[in-house]
């Protein structure tokens, strides 16, 4: 078990979150639940990206102390963090739009079942 590093733990958790979220999307017929599934999967993705930049031997990339300034190599890679920040905000935007759609679709059919929204096909 000593092979289990924090990174492994976080990555496996992230993958599980992605899978659980996608399972919700694929198995639950309620469109609101599907949107929740995507939100969950998004969280998993964010965890995954952040983990890729993490290093338990280093600290946050904020050089606000003189000793850090003198030896900047003590901090972790800031890029994945910047990416996750962007991804979180984009995720919120997509979720908001999806929910707007859900509200309108509900107004349209008085139902949240994905099977009620398949008039266009073939």
């Amino acid at each position, binding site marked *: 078990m000593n092979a289990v590093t924090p990174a492994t733990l976080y990555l496996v958790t992230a993958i599980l979150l992605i899978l659980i*979220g996608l399972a919700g999307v694929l198995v639950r017929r309620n469109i609101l639940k599907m949107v929740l599934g995507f939100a969950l999967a998004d969280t998993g993705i964010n965890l995954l990206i952040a983990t890729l930049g993490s290093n338990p031997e280093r600290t946050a990339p904020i050089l606000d102390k003189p000793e850090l300034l003198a030896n900047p190599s003590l901090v*972790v890679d800031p890029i994945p963090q910047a990416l996750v920040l962007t991804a979180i905000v984009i995720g919120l935007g997509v*979720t908001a739009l999806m929910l707007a759609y859900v509200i309108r679709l509900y107004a349209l059919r008085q139902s949240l079942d994905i099977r009620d929204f398949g008039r266009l096909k073939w």
Partner: protein
Amino acid sequence: MMYLDLLVCLVLVLSGVAAMNTRNLVSAAVMVGVVSLLVSYLFLRMGAPDVAMTEASIGAGLSTIIFLIAIRRTEEEER
């Protein structure tokens, strides 16, 4: 610390499963919010306070709120 992490991850995955399994949409949304909150703790642990703050305020906070609003404007139970 490693064991705390393990515990958090475990709770996190279980909340996720619960969120997808419960029929009540409000609790599902709250569960997803809880997952976000726990993930933001993990972000803090891995030296990403900026991300942690964002995840907590946007992922756990605002997202959950707009989910709740949407649920309120449609149905609360999964049929």
